[in-house]
């Protein structure tokens, strides 16, 4: 069960339209390392996790990713809501506009729709936690690429916040992995054997 709270986790106040920026930032909505993939990855991986603390971390980070998804959508919406037909044609936003008008739809910047194949739920604690750490680094790198391409302070402020959260999440998944490894038996410390084959002691 989730509850909706009618506010953003971090404020977004964008006063100028910028279709070029929106086309780049939408990748963090539905692109390969975006917030939609992040939320679905962590919330889906929870069910086969055996470590209680790892389940807590996945639940709480997965929930925060939903709040980040709303922040990214708000940025895209505020950058596009008052676009004129001339601006839409001149910025190259016309290729998106023809299918989605000014709606927010999950896609990568290059036009590839959101795809669940961009994340994995392998059903193995060690495998999944390594994937989660890599995902946080990929998302951080994407936010840094956005900051190299866009200089408007109204846009960069919430993007910087989102980038910082990737660093915190990487740290927490790293700590979770360490705790899981501490609990493994000595013969299986490096986790050559899948969780599914674990024999009862």
């Amino acid at each position, binding site marked *: 069960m989730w509850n909706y709270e009618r506010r*953003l986790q971090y404020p977004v106040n964008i006063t100028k339209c910028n279709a070029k920026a929106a086309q780049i930032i939408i990748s963090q909505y539905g692109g390969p390392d975006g917030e939609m993939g992040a939320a679905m990855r962590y919330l889906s991986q929870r069910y086969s996790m055996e470590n209680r603390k790892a389940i807590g971390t996945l639940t709480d980070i997965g929930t925060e990713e939903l709040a980040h998804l709303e922040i990214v959508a708000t940025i895209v919406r505020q950058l596009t809501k008052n676009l004129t037909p001339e601006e839409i044609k001149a910025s190259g936003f016309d290729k998106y506009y023809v299918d989605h008008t000014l709606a927010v739809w999950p896609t990568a910047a290059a036009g590839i729709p959101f795809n669940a194949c961009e994340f994995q739920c392998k059903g193995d604690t060690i495998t999944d936690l390594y994937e989660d750490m890599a995902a946080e680094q990929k998302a951080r790198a994407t936010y840094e690429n956005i900051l190299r391409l866009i200089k408007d302070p109204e846009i960069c402020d919430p993007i910087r916040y989102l980038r910082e959260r990737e660093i915190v999440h990487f740290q927490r998944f790293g700590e979770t992995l360490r705790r899981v490894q501490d609990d493994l038996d000595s013969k299986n410390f490096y986790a050559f054997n899948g969780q599914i084959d674990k024999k009862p002691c």
Partner: protein
Amino acid sequence: MNQDKNKLLLYLSQVSFAINDLVLFLDTHPCDTNALNYYQELRKARKEALAEYTHKYGPLINYDVDDACYWEWVKDPWPWE
């Protein structure tokens, strides 16, 4: 009036964010006494700020709607507007 509303919402968001961040820390450090105490402190601050905001400006959560004449949940702007 509008400035006070935004100020209170910002304060609520700051306190709530401190909790969001602390929760992730506690998930991996469940025995940390300082963090546990800080959580209780923040929890009280958030509860008070949320109650004050809801009382003055309307519900942020649809369990807190307190108006028998109109469904005020759909009255105010949404966060992206």
